[in-house]
């Protein structure tokens, strides 16, 4: 899909990876377990996927994935942070929808398909576990339901075809507009054997911010989960010692949530007072 004249706001944000070459998907390591891999290393049945499927196409053959429909998160109205009759700037009528890249459906192209199919072989109730797959700018994100997170992560780490043995970190994001799934925990996994990266995302509502902890599988996530708890209030069930790590132990609130103020003070300088950054005019 090529750029249409950007007259309507919706088209400005439509994303499509249909014609984009698969970025970052050239596996430089092994794509298959080698001949010495013991049978018990495979946590599931022998995969029927050959390595031929895994080579990324370059140049010539375009990957025809169906265009993912964007997912509307919120609608922004107006500009300069002003609403009501006081706004005479003319920007009050501006309506802009915030659309995140939408879900893709298989085939995705390249090694993503083999990972997706392998997960399907290992996990029985596949469509319950992975609720959505998003591919954007050459990176794949699996949205995982929280009840199945530990089971999925176990397979991701241990199966010889997947082998995502390195967890880069756990990051939290707070989307206040995404009711029912405000707090997201994002896990970046890396397979050093196969030299690939994927991302897992778990959404939990504000009212019940519990996510199972992956520390048993990835001990490195210990401090990362503590930090996410400290900053966002996501409670990781099963974490050995979930306490505050960056803020003082008795600090109330979770600072990096969107409803927590930045906490600055107005700055006075030679007759003028400048408000703190969060109270200044915004052009978003």
């Amino acid at each position: 899909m090529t750029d249409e004249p950007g007259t309507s706001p919706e088209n400005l944000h439509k994303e499509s990876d249909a014609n984009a070459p698969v970025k970052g998907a050239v596996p430089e390591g092994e794509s298959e377990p080698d001949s010495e891999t013991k049978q018990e290393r495979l946590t599931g049945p022998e995969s029927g996927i050959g390595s031929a499927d895994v080579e990324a196409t370059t140049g010539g053959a375009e990957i025809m994935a169906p265009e993912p429909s964007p997912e509307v998160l919120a609608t922004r109205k107006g500009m300069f942070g002003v609403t009501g009759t006081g706004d005479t700037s003319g920007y009050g009528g501006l309506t802009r929808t915030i659309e995140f890249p939408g879900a893709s459906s298989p085939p995705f192209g390249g090694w993503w398909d083999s990972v997706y199919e392998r997960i399907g072989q290992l996990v029985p109730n596949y469509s319950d576990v992975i609720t959505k797959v998003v591919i954007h700018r050459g990176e794949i994100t699996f949205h995982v339901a929280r009840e199945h997170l530990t089971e999925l992560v176990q397979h991701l780490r241990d199966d010889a075809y997947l082998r995502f043995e390195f967890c880069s970190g756990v990051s939290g994001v707070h989307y206040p507009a995404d009711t029912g799934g405000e707090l997201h925990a994002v896990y970046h996994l890396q397979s050093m054997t196969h030299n690939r990266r994927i991302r897992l995302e778990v959404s939990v509502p504000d009212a019940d911010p519990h996510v199972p902890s992956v520390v048993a599988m990835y001990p490195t996530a210990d401090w990362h989960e503590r930090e996410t708890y400290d900053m966002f209030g996501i409670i990781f069930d099963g974490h050995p010692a979930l306490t505050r790590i960056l803020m003082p132990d008795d600090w109330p609130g979770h600072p990096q949530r969107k409803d927590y103020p930045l906490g600055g003070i107005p700055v006075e300088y030679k007759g003028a007072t400048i408000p703190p950054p969060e109270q200044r005019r915004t052009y978003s």
Partner: protein
Amino acid sequence: MTSTVGDTTAPGAEAPQPTEDMYGVGGEEAEGHVYTVTGQDWDQLVSEHAERGDERIVVNMGPQHPSTHGVLRLILEMEGETITEARCGIGYLHTGIEKNMEFRNWTQGVTFCTRMDYLSPFFNETTYCLGVERLLDIEDQIPDKANVMRVMMMELNRISSHLVCIATGGMEIGALTVMTIGFREREKVLDVFELITGLRMNHGYVRPGGVGQDLPLRALTKVREFIAWMRKHLPEYAAFCNENPIFKGRLCGIGYLDLAGCMALGITGPPLRATGYDWDLRKKQPYCGYESYDFEVQTWDTPDAYGRFRIRLSEMWESLKIIEQCVERLEKMEGDPIIVPDAKIAWPARLSIGSDGLGNSNEHIKHIMGESMEALIHHFKLVTEGFRVPPGQAYVPVESPRGELGAHVVSDGGTRPFRAHFRDPSFTNLQAMPVMCEGSMVSDVVVAVASLDPVMGGVDR
């Protein structure tokens, strides 16, 4: 979600009732007894601990201590000289940089993230800009000269960061000459930085779209002189330390962490390469054109503090090689653009010193005021609101001197980062401290932590 004071509940536990004693929410949350220490009450804590009947001493190293790399607090339970349990207390430098970035432009975010890991500012900037460029989908439009300059500045930064690690590590074990020569060499690197970016530290140089400033006159000559100086003086460190019996006695066998330990704890950088595994993101997942440079990944066969020290020394030699290749390429790229041609995203600063001694972009001002209306509009929009980045998220890691440094950048289509989270190598590497230190002596803790090279600005952000 409402939060109550003292919100340190265990997962799944009921929320505690607000009590009179703000610090009194104790109990079974964590393994062992949880203490909250706020200051001026160390005696109370020690007597409480003594009443529990253990024969062990709790020693608190830090947060203010010359042997900790910044404000790191080490809580050590000791029996005699041996450490039985060790924990890190961090958060003493938490600055809320990530939240601050949510209230600034995408370009202004660079000046914030630069100050996280303050010994490797270029790496912070580059990983953030790579993430933003991936979201903007301009990754293949970055000019070659910008990429070469990014690589050159990053490798110079790698040298200066390793020099600080070796210098402070030497100082902590008492080798003060290593500190003086380390900082002497580092001044040379900072001179080059000052010439090219204008600042010695915390440069806001790498911007989304390219780099901020072009090379000034005679910069390449200066870099060549620097390379010659380093080639002459780097062997001094090897002469001082490599076969020094005291140095080897202090470092060999200390801070042992083998490959299984590194992989479980998510350690990257010199500690991982000391195990013999040649994992380096510059080779495995190249960025900024690293695949076209000729250099080797340095490994060592003993995963202890000595191995990490030798790796850092050799990495400095490899960085010199890369810088030389960059200089050769830059000599042919005179006059090339240094930032994306799309004027809606970027404009190069093109600073020059005016007649009043202050810096300003006089050329640019002449252009927008006199020559081009579009340029004026672009300048106005870029300065007031900045550019807009399409919604989505990206994570592009780079190989910083300490390990894998990555920025998870989330955009909601606006002019500000919706969320910018940095996966800092020091934060993750510091989790290995208990593993390396329990069972050893106090003096070995100093060496082990120094060999991990944590920078608390990156740990606490």
